């Protein structure tokens, strides 16, 4: 019995120690100011992390927007309020779906790629080589990837939202016959830039930080075997997804709770 308690105690302490290490990585890589000469690295990472995710985000946004338009119409038409479908599509996307779904897709695509890449660099001793050459791997490898993640997520989320809105507009106006004037004006009246759009972007930034951080940390801590890397990649996706959904709840309460 005592052994069991000791085991739990040890596990708990090692998780806390892990979190401490992770925080160190985050703060050091962020606040050790990215040097101007590392700027091209950030650009290159923006490509790998952001640009390459563009297709999956845009396509998903389009389909979700179209489904929202369709489902929204079928529900609202019973109340005679089908003119409000634009409002429904826009608010759902901007407040919730754009930041959350984008973050989940991002975790799956970019997050897992980051973990695998860094895990592999660790396994093949590339990180150790960098250290021996006198280059700080946190600055050269980790920091550019963190910044690329923070910048890409809100951008991807906004693209998701706008593509979704136009997808919803396409379905509602062209296919289901909602008057285009009503669609857009009801939407514009009910979507507030500061309360809705900006809050959605804040969510996206928070999710971006969390996902990129988890992905990089898991890569750095991975066991240097193929099995180890695969486990770390899975952990990245699972932990990121859970954190995204939990944080979404917290942020939603904070932002929209007292309407």
């Amino acid at each position, binding site marked *: 019995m005592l052994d069991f308690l000791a085991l739990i105690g040890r596990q708990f302490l090692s998780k806390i120690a892990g979190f401490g290490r992770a925080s160190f990585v985050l703060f050091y890589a962020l606040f050790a100011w990215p040097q101007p000469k590392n700027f091209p690295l950030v650009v290159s990472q923006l490509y790998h992390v952001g640009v390459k995710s563009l297709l999956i985000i845009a396509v998903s946004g389009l389909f979700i927007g179209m489904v929202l338009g369709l489902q929204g119409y079928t529900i609202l038409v019973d109340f005679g309020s089908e003119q409000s479908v634009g409002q429904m599509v826009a608010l759902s996307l901007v407040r919730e779906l754009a930041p959350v779904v984008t973050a989940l897709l991002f975790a799956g695509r970019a997050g897992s790629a980051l973990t695998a890449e860094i895990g*592999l*660099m660790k396994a093949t*001793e590339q990180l150790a080589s960098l*250290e*021996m*050459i*006198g280059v700080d791997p946190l600055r050269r490898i980790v920091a550019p990837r963190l910044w690329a993640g923070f910048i890409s997520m809100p951008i991807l989320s906004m693209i998701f939202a706008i593509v979704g809105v136009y997808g919803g507009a396409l379905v509602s106006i062209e296919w289901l016959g909602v008057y285009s004037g009503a669609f857009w004006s009801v939407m514009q009246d009910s979507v507030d830039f500061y309360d809705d759009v900006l809050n959605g972007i804040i969510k996206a930034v928070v999710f971006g930080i969390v996902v990129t951080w988890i992905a990089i940390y898991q890569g750095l801590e991975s066991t240097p075997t193929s099995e180890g890397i695969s486990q770390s990649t899975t952990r990245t996706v699972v932990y990121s997804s859970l954190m995204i959904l939990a944080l979404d709840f917290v942020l939603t309460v904070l932002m929209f709770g007292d309407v």
Partner: protein
Amino acid sequence: MGDRENVIEISHLRFKRGDRVIFKDINISIPKGKISAIMGPSGSGKTTLLKMIGGQLYPDAGSVSVEGVVVRDLSRKALFSLRKKMGMLFQSGALFSDMSVFQNVAFPLRVNTSLNAEMIRDIVLLKLQAVGLRGASQLMPSELSGGMARRVALARAIALEPEIGMYDEPFAGQDPIGMGVLVTLIKKLNQALGHTSVIVSHDIQETLSIADYIFIIADGEMLACGTAEQIKNSSSEKVQQFIHGHPDGPVPFHYPAIDLMQQIMAGDTGDHREQGY
């Protein structure tokens, strides 16, 4: 060990990894400007020693000092400048997979010096020429064979012409020609620059042929040290077994296990995963 100057001092080193004791009490003095070899059976912790010299691992007890400064006491900044004086060749080559051969060798130059692009290019080409791979400068690491990759890694390790060169298994996996190239190269660097070389290897022939001093480590302790001649003529049984490659002697070949007949009779695979635990 006389009056020579020692650039690396390892004294009373103790190190454990988990429950396994890797070093019990190691004392090694690496002389300056000479080629020293650290040899020993697999798993004796040779690579770990190199990592300690480079400050990537810290000992549990005892000290490792380079040029008189204890590595553990160095600040992060001081450690990074110390590392610029060292060039390390990793066992796996560890080339940066997203850069070409040329870019890999140029990397330490670009990062640690302010030389202009033409000078860097010349130096890189010269280093690649020395390892016989100048024609491969545009290839990516994934396109190289293991032996070639390790030669490029050597070129990268010596790009800055460091004072201390550490080579982890440089001869492993090389064909005879590649081997010859490396042996000559390390010797030349040593003669031309007064460069201190530390080679970790279990390639007896090659190592004995170029090393000035040899340190043999086994069971967490130093088994023997001395010049190549002294080692070859050593009276110790263990040393003789090692350098002649006898499969069995004082250092057992077999991993500890119960009697063979006993195990077969009991139908025990010895692997709990097989048993469906």
